[in-house]
């Protein structure tokens, strides 16, 4: 692999890691607060559809983004209602949201646009363009670092920068603020939070809505930045991969970035080398495409060692004496 090809693969890695990273951080907020969220996938998908639909109708990518976030927040609210207010089973609520999003997006897309469950292709102001960072032109001639800056760092959609900026911000919120302390506490022992005079319900709802916000951005990125329009099931299991990355990262923000970049890299390699010729044998494209999913299974099978989830995760909080 020569240097320009490597840069291309890495560039593609960054683009593909972005939705994973946003969804992974979304899950991190929710699960750190003790609400397991298997519905990342559904929230991303709903956001992808509504952002593309509104962007197509209004021609404004920003209105599209807002619509996507709003759709994701609504689903987050449903999850919160089911699992916090009504103390339902968090897994079932999440699965229900995934089914809901999967069916509803195609149904509404067909009803609105009559293009077989797709939205019209987006272009111009209805799609996020790539931002060229300053000096990337003149610096491009500097050996090694120049192309890295011009191709890898510069030239992405704004949402990519948002995603990677969200990593230190998440870390800072989690470990340097009062809100973060309480968030981590409520995922470990909600009774401690409750007896300290803080509302467990409010805290968990806040976390779930932050999760909704980030999932919304992730979905919108898929439909109106990475691609130019919505296609059915376009989230393609990214919500689940993000969950695997979250476990891989042991619920920590910087590790989450590493995990998502790894998954993104595997996807990028899969796309770049469709039929990998190793001389004696040729690895077929299907294997390459399956790489991230294979890694997910390996990780979830506990290959990475013990990952201890937040102790109160998955358990509705019932006040006892």
């Amino acid at each position: 692999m020569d240097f320009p090809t490597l840069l291309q693969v890495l560039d593609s890695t960054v683009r593909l890691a972005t939705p994973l990273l946003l969804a992974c951080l979304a899950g991190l907020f929710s699960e750190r607060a003790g609400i397991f969220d298997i519905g990342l996938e559904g929230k991303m998908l709903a956001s992808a559809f509504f952002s593309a639909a509104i962007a197509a109708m209004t021609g404004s990518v920003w209105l599209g983004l807002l619509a996507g976030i709003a759709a994701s927040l609504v689903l987050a609210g449903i999850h919160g209602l089911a699992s916090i207010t009504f103390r339902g089973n968090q897994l079932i609520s999440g699965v229900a949201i995934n089914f809901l999003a999967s069916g509803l997006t195609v149904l509404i897309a067909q009803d609105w646009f009559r293009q077989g469950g797709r939205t019209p292709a987006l272009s111009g102001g209805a799609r996020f363009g790539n931002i060229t960072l300053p000096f990337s032109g003149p610096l491009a001639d500097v050996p090694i670092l120049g192309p890295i800056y011009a191709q890898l760092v510069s030239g992405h959609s704004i949402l990519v920068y948002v995603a990677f900026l969200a990593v230190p911000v998440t870390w800072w919120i989690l470990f340097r603020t009062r809100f973060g302390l309480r968030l981590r506490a409520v995922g470990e022992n909600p009774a401690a939070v409750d007896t300290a005079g803080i509302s467990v319900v409010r805290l968990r709802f806040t976390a779930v809505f932050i999760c909704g916000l980030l999932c919304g951005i992730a979905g919108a990125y898929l439909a109106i930045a990475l691609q130019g329009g919505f296609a059915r099931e376009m989230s393609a299991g990214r919500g689940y991969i993000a969950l695997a990355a979250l476990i891989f990262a042991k619920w920590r923000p910087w590790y989450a970035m590493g995990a998502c970049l790894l998954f993104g890299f595997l996807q990028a390699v899969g796309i770049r080398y469709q039929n990998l010729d190793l001389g004696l044998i040729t690895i077929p494209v299907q294997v390459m495409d399956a790489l991230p999913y294979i890694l997910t299974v390996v990780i979830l099978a506990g290959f990475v060692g013990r990952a201890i989830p937040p102790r109160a995760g998955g358990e509705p909080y019932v006040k006892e004496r």
Partner: protein
Amino acid sequence: MTGGGQNTGRAETAAPAIELKGISKAFGPVQANKNISIRVQPGSIHGIIGENGAGKSTLMSILYGFYKADAGEIFIKGRKTEIPNSEAAIAAGIGMVFQHFKLVQNFTVLENVVLGAEDGALLRPSLAKARDELRSLADEYELRIDPDAVIDEIGVGMQQRVEILKALYREAEILILDEPTGVLTPAEADHLFRILRGLKDQGKTIILITHKLREIMEVTDTVSVMRRGEMTATVKTAETSPEQLAELMVGRKVLLRVDKKPATPGGTVLEVENLKVRDHAGVERLKGVSLTVRAGEILGIAGVAGNGQSELLQVLGGIAHGTGSVRLNGTELDLTGRFSDGRSRRAKGIAHVPEDRQHLGLIMDFAAWENVAFGYQGDPAYNPTPWRIDNAAIRADCAGKMERFDVRPPNPLLAAKNFSGGNQQKIVLAREIERNPELLLIGQPTRGVDIGAIEFIHQRIVQLRDTGKAILLVSVELDEIMSLSDRIAVMFDGRIMGERLPGETDERELGLLMAGMDSAPGNGRPALETVGGGH
């Protein structure tokens, strides 16, 4: 209701720190608190004593804003106060130390103290301030603790101190402690009482909820007694006696000392030699235990929880494997292999009342009659033919056992979880004792059992002894060991530290042995650096 405030009716000049007037609370048909009135004087230690289910915890939960009372008023320092939630309770200067600590296990001491009492949106200044504050609190109240220790890695005594510090950091004037000594060693409990007296001297008001009479007598100034949701009396501690309090709690006279004749031991029934047990992590839990139990004798094993007593019971009861030699009436028992299980033990005449009755002794969701058959389901009396189990026979047998063991309510169809702790224990005891075993293994016979039932259970154990059976008793309650045992062996760190006769020893000496110090003359060095089980 006239009980509240009697004997303290003399005019007090200062407003009471807490005054409750006519508090009532019902959960469905169950009246947990009935018209409770109480005055707690500032700067005093006020005990609230009562059996399990008497309504103590409900009352305190109302005071801490967990439940809303159906009727009644709360006055704090003479001012009527509404306490709709914990936040309001904290604001009113009430701090609560729960029986089950409310700590975040993977947080540091400092983070736990600060949680919910932060000074601003950023953490760093709050933590710095709390660190200074903790240092001065530590000096003031003898509450020394490493602020950066993680809760997971400190002992329960320390964890309790963190809970107290949490309350003090929130400037609590009134401190409520719910069954604080349940998890402590005698030495830790003494330290706690010193802390409480120190707090009282600084003008704090302390409410101590417990079912242990000894603690009430030792540390409180005033004591209120609750029975079946009612406050039956409030008396000065100095003017009462354990016997009187027990009678007030139960509503009838209670024998606090176990009534038993001297033992007339026969031949050796159980002989344990150099018994060793490793847990699944490979840590040696029993490091060569040797002991004997004779017929017609109760051998009491004292010790702080986690020093190998559980493993001893498990290996003898056939739940765990071990190495060494165990003989029952001269025949060797298998310690590994297929004949080392509970079924083989039962067949040899060993009955086991396990320490953890809710997990090992009973299946909580199953009915009492099903629980009565467990372990003995192969009994021919239950199996008229090899292919049919006679449920009616088991139910009838259960009804008989319930009557003989005074299980209330005597309903074989009721699920085990719906009985009180004492009645659950009676079901297990009935099942094991009525099999007429050669050897009874019994762990924590009265843990979570109310005082009336304790008396009954103790009597039954002594009766079994008097029929010439051998009994191995494990308990963390020193009182129980002292009053039931004919001989006492003290365990520490997987070893027997020594054996004493109950008439020739005292709590101080046993306490030293439990902490790993040999009290014999010239041997006064600690057996290990660390004192206590460390679990």
